[in-house]
């Protein structure tokens, strides 16, 4: 067993990171460019997360939303929904933040090679998938068809609109963006992500699906994927529970036999399925 002094080290001996830049992504969502302290090298795999500590307020798990191949400030996209995320979203350039990580499992980028890939995101589910999209595009020849289906509440809530437009312009990427509600001037689609699965180009036999979003959206999306012919083991999702320690010690994020911070956040749907459907989990 790991000695306690060693086990708690994640919270000790950590130099704070510096806010190098801020991007307002939407009304309530901000991307922070965080610069590691001198001498600290940071790398991560698509889907992994860091614990960000707003000093004196609290700590939250936030997925890395930048390009895993890029050296430099590390991007985290945060929605302002509570005390800690509000403190993080209102940081200014030059201020400091506690960072520990990366933690958790990653998207099965290697396993998906040779087949079609469906990337399905809802709301702030796009940032945890963005590193995977960068990886897919950087290694485009390793994959067959790639489709991104992204849903948001309204056109004003869409994240990374410039990047979405650039991706839509590519001939080797199918992009479908939809919103739940829109006014007359919106030229895009209105509907939910599962509605568009049947229109996307993919061969269910060779497809790997990555899904992130609110849990209700995930459940509807998984149902639609299975109706479209995918098997449970071809579907991967990133789930969220009450992650506190991120090291598998505290048990707050238990989901059946799993600790989401240690065994997730990226899971294959197959072992997770019975626990997602269970009310008590």
């Amino acid at each position, binding site marked *: 067993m790991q000695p306690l002094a060693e086990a708690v080290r994640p919270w000790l001996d950590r130099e704070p990171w510096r806010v190098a830049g801020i991007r307002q992504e939407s009304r*309530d969502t901000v991307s922070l460019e965080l610069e590691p302290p001198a001498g600290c090298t940071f790398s991560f795999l698509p889907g992994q997360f860091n614990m960000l500590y707003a000093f004196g307020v*609290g700590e*939250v798990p936030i997925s890395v939303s930048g390009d895993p191949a890029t050296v430099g400030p590390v991007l985290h996209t945060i*929605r302002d*929904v*509570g*005390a*800690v*995320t509000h403190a993080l979203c209102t940081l200014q350039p030059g201020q400091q933040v506690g960072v520990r990580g990366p933690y958790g499992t990653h998207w099965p980028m290697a396993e998906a090679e040779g087949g079609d890939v469906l990337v399905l995101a*809802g*709301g*702030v589910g796009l940032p945890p998938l963005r590193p995977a999209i960068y990886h897919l595009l950087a290694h485009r020849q390793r994959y067959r068809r790639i489709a991104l289906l992204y*849903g*948001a*509440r309204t056109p004003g*809530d869409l994240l990374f609109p410039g990047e979405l437009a650039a991706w839509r312009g590519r001939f080797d990427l199918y992009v479908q963006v*939809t919103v*739940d*509600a*829109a*006014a*007359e001037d*919106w*030229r*895009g*689609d*209105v*509907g*939910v992500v*599962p*509605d568009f699965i*049947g*229109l996307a180009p993919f061969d269910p036999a060779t497809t790997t699906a990555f899904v992130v*979003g*609110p*849990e*209700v*959206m995930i459940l*509807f999306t998984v149902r639609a994927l299975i109706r479209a012919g995918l098997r449970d083991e071809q579907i991967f999702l990133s789930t*969220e529970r*009450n992650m506190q320690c991120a090291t598998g010690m505290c048990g707050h994020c238990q989901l059946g036999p799993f600790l989401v911070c240690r065994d997730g956040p990226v899971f294959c749907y197959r072992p997770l399925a019975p626990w997602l459907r269970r009310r008590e989990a």
Partner: protein
Amino acid sequence: MDTLEHELRNHPFLGDLSPAYLTLLAGCAANVHFPAGAFLFREGTPADQCFLLRKGKVALEIAAGGRGPLIIQTVAAGEVTGFSWLLEPHLWQFDGRVIEPVSAVALDGRCLRAKCEDDPRLGFELMRRFATLATGRLQSARLRLLDVYGTAHATSR
């Protein structure tokens, strides 16, 4: 030149119907085109057609007092819009405004109803397809009603 029967066979909604039924339904069909900004149908007017979209995109809208039209759903190539022809009082419930130029096969509702009355097997088959379509739209509406991307579903930390 593509025949209407061929167009119906190539559309996902009816493509797997028997050739005999496709021939029968082609008798109710017409090729139609609408430019961007045109309306396929207007709320409250007689619903005497349904549209199998081959190209383009249509916004289903409802006029909201003082707010301008709100888009409820968009329907694109490969999809179908219009069930009001099937159920009384046969009036459109929404506006259908063209966002991207539309090419579609329009099926005449009165003609379809007559063929369904004459051949209950065809009637059941069409009813099953439209019921599946309506159920999908209902599920979609329910999911949006949940407002899953709203803050109520976010982890509030």
